[in-house]
């Protein structure tokens, strides 16, 4: 009906309104939730990667002080269903993930029995006392080995360990390779990683026998998915379960999945009739929260003599661990990697094979940059290898090979439509901000001492804001894909919005408030954002895959517009003016050019909720509230460029990052400060993947990195300061102008650092094909190159 008021808060650097309670210890996290009579749960976890559970003797544990119950897999299967992630498509094989393993355990750390006691100390004492007899089975801990015909099988109902496979060719690949002046082929590997949020997973469940409902507080990114997964596993209708996400200390992906512990805790609450709590400790987190990134790819590139990239061929083998995670399935990583591989490049040909392979390791799932970080590593390394082979600057190869902004929407060689992007503009802005030519000159001047300078670039596209169209295409039928918002002006004029998103630190209370305050023309302080409660918030998907601002934000805008239109209709009636002549600003609705002829939003609300106090316009219903369920276009793409400058000590293999520049384009920025915060954190995680982080198993599938002494997250001491250059290419025809942006930092950083290290070591004949690049790895590569060089 009316034009949106001018944006006042959107695009402003507004301090996060959620920070004071978080920083002052007032926020309520899962561990702060205490209910009367509450018991604590702990899990006996399989010490074997693959073993039959012969028998469990809990008598000694049950006799210990404070111990209330011990539950085994054999028992729990009588009243729970295994978690089963479904997918459409013939090649997918689902797995049954039991609430407690029975009759066999498939990875070290898989829950085998649950102990319920008065507190965590007593729980841990009793865990030691549960005697489990195992019959170890041969484990398979490597995806390539798991694909061989005689490999031990994880899931007997399936003919092999391949959970998902796909093949694709755009039809031009062979010809492009045949025509190419240059073709290169190599194998890339990425170590297994985990997201390690500050707060682990956790669940509190409470069964209300009076009305037969279960209330679940869960550290989840997707309350409605958690509800759906629990309903299926517990044989309860969704209407009987309420999921509440309290303050969450980081999610990064793994908290969108439903886990056996969640099901067991709920089942125990229901059976014991007492509230039950489980909080993952760090060891459990490093053993059992969904992991990521373990890939091998055989990849080929075809290019012209001048370095123009023509085509890629790739085989992605992803180690997905023991089970296919709910609700995205084990297809998430390999298929995302395969789809994003063309990135911002104009390719003639692209073909891939992608496999998700089960192994006796922790299941993998969503982690910031899912699939995209690895495919970007493969692609951006290949691009640099082409640059080296043609003796062309890596920046020039990219510039020559990108699709152009004028060609957007651009259908990539994998068939994905990039709605809008300006890759060359992004590259130029970063080269300019970094002073690229100067950096190259410094590099040449630095010479050939023990510290070698390297400069690395990475260009990427980031899949964001996916609607149901994308999930349908990908066969992920359990992912709703839409999100929703209810906007309500309360009788006293305050504005509240209830969203299906679920913040884990992204600053939703601030950014959604900015969006809503602008849509309604009210002060920011008048707005409160409420998330993370399936009873208060409308049904939707939650917060993962860089979707919240696009999808929940879109729903919020559309719901707010309904409320604004109704507000104007009522105000017009009150002011005896035409609605089109009204302007809203700062919570006041005035007749244009006549500031004194005005009512406040509170005036309008009072009338809307108490129609007897005046008269509503004819045909207008009471109250001031609207809900919108928004299913956006399949996706909108952010894009960006990273530049890293490193010094590598060639005697010790140590890498120091001396400069880091990010060019980020996520359309209209709601809050540039929060965008930068997201980038800083994401870059930190990407640098972790590049240099530090790796989940290591021994040959028997025993994880060796079960504390932060061994799983190394970069700290402030290792991280560079990150310079950010913004550009804004809003998606055409979108509701909001926004794109998602939470993952780009992670996607770009690992590859930029890898390329910088490769650049530094190129004169020594070292090629970088694996991550992470620990000092020991680089030392070995340098020594091998020296040996090969001497031999040659």
């Amino acid at each position, binding site marked *: 009906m009316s034009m949106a008021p001018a944006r006042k808060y959107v695009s402003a650097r507004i301090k996060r309104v959620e920070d004071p309670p978080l920083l002052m210890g007032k926020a309520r996290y899962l561990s702060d939730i205490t209910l009367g009579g509450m018991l604590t749960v702990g899990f006996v976890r399989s010490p074997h990667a693959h073993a039959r559970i012969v028998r469990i003797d809990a008598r000694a544990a049950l006799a210990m002080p404070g111990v209330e119950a011990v539950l085994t897999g054999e028992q729990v299967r009588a009243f729970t269903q295994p978690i089963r992630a479904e997918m459409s498509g013939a090649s997918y094989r689902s797995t049954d993930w039991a609430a407690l393993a029975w009759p066999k355990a498939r990875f070290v750390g898989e829950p085998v029995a649950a102990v319920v006691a008065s507190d965590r100390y007593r729980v841990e004492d009793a865990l*030691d006392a549960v005697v489990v007899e195992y019959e170890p089975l041969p484990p398979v801990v490597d995806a390539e080995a798991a694909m061989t015909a005689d490999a031990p099988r994880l899931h007997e109902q399936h003919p092999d360990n391949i959970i998902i496979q796909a093949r694709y060719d755009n039809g031009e690949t062979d010809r492009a390779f045949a025509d190419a002046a240059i073709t290169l082929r190599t194998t890339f590997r990425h170590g297994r990683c985990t997201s390690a949020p500050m707060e682990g997973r956790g669940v509190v469940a409470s069964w209300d026998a009076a009305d037969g409902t279960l209330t679940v507080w869960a550290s989840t990114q997707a309350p409605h998915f958690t509800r759906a997964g629990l309903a299926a596993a517990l044989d309860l209708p969704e209407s009987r379960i309420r999921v509440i996400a309290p303050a969450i200390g980081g999610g990064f992906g793994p908290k969108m999945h439903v886990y056996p512990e969640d099901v067991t805790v709920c089942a125990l609450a229901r059976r014991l009739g007492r509230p039950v709590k489980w909080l993952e400790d760090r060891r459990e987190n490093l053993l059992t929260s969904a992991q990521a990134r373990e890939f091998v790819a055989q990849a080929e590139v075809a290019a012209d003599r001048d370095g123009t990239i023509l085509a890629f061929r790739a085989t992605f083998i992803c180690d997905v661990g023991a089970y296919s995670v709910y609700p995205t399935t084990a297809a998430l990583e390999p298929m995302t990697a395969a789809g994003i591989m063309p990135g911002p490049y104009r390719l003639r040909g692209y073909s891939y094979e992608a496999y998700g392979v089960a192994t006796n390791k922790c299941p993998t799932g969503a982690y910031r940059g899912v699939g995209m970080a690895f495919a970007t590593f493969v692609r951006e390394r290949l691009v640099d290898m082409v640059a080296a082979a043609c003796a062309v600057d890596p920046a020039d190869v990219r510039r020559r090979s990108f699709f152009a902004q004028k060609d957007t929407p651009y259908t990539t060689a994998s068939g994905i439509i990039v709605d809008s992007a300006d890759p060359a503009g992004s590259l130029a802005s970063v080269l300019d901000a970094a002073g690229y030519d100067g950096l190259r000159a410094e590099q040449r001047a630095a010479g050939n001492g023990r510290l070698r300078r390297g400069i690395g670039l990475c260009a990427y596209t980031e899949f964001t804001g996916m609607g149901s169209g994308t999930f349908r295409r990908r066969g992920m039928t359990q992912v709703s894909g839409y999100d929703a918002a209810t906007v309500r002006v309360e009788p006293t004029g305050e504005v509240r919005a209830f969203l299906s998103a679920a913040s884990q630190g992204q600053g939703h209370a601030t950014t959604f408030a900015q969006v809503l305050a602008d849509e309604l023309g009210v002060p920011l302080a008048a707005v409160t954002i409420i998330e993370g409660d399936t009873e208060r918030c409308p049904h939707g998907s939650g917060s993962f895959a860089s979707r919240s601002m696009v999808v929940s934000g879109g729903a919020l805008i559309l719901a707010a517009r309904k409320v604004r239109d109704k507000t104007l209709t009522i105000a017009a009636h009150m002011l005896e003016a035409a609605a089109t002549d009204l302007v809203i600003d700062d919570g006041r609705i005035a007749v244009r050019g006549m500031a004194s002829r005005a009512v406040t939003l509170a005036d309008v609300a009072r009338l809307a909720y108490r129609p007897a106090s005046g008269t509503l316009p004819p045909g207008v219903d009471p109250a001031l509230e609207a809900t919108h369920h928004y299913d956006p276009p399949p996706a909108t793409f952010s894009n960006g460029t990273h530049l890293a400058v490193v010094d590598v000590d060639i005697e010790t293999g140590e890498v120091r990052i001396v400069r880091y520049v990010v060019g980020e384009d996520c359309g209209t920025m709601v809050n540039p400060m929060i965008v930068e915060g997201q980038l800083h954190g994401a870059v930190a995680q990407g640098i972790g993947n590049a240099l530090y982080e790796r989940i290591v198993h021994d040959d028997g599938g025993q994880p060796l990195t079960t504390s932060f002494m061994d799983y190394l997250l970069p700290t402030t001491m290792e991280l560079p300061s990150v310079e950010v250059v913004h550009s804004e290419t809003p998606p055409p025809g979108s509701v909001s102008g926004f794109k998602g942006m939470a993952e780009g930092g992670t996607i770009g950083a690992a590859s930029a650092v890898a390329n910088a290290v490769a650049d530094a070591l190129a004169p020594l004949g070292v090629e970088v094909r694996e991550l992470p690049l620990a000092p020991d790895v680089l030392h*070995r590569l340098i020594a091998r190159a020296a040996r090969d060089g001497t031999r040659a």
Partner: protein
Amino acid sequence: MKPPPFEYFAPASVKETLDLLREHGDQAKLLAGGQSLVPMLNFRLVRPGALIDLNGVPGLDGIREEPGMLRIGAMTRQRAVERSAVVRERCPLLAEAMPQIGHVQIRNRGTIGGSLVHADPAAELPAVVAALGGELIVRGAAGERTIAAADFFVGYLTTAVAADELLVAVRLPVAPPRAGHAFVEVSRRHGDFALVGVAVTVTLDGSGVCTSAAIAVTGVGPAPVVAADAVAALVGQRPATTAFEEAARRVSAQLEPHSDLHASAEYRKQVGGVLTRRALALASERAAGASR
């Protein structure tokens, strides 16, 4: 991540501590800064029946100058040593090693004695004490005894302190004139235990010839490795690159390190040599500076 049950004691004197140790025998564990012990308790890697807290025992901390020596009480916080002007002046090798131990928060609680008795194979302090030829003063029911560094570090997480004994102090010789020092290490991240670390001292005579030197390497075996053979490549010579390289070669040849998650044996062997060369160069430069 919760410790198994234990009995907690807070003795108020050394005597009371020794009585408790005698009473509980090898069931007892002393608690100093807790920076190694508490994680081990929480992982249930140790299950002591009795935890004897040293934090209320008077007289175990403080830094004192004695003739030719610096005496540091076992309960002296690592951070206090790091910030001590006396340590910086008299025992600069120790001062240089301190900030490389963990993080400020760890050093605020962690003690000198705790680190030495815990004897992590990659810890900095054992290498410093070994390089300097320090002495460790231990008290038991029978009284005090002094153990030379060379006899103190027995093996992996094991020292010569008996179950009914207490480390009370470490004594370190003060740096002579015309001496230089260096502590260099490679760790995965700032504050991590060293993949390999080297503690070095070099002393010159008036004409710039090396009269004595010491090299101790950490992270390359169960206990710090003292490289006497490499030292022989320096003593009697003017410090020069060729001598450093020869010493580095000898150190590498002597090392028989282990492989673990973070570095291979080969890495530790080679980089042990590299760091020796760098440390000797730095220490010699400092010694020459001190001679001027």
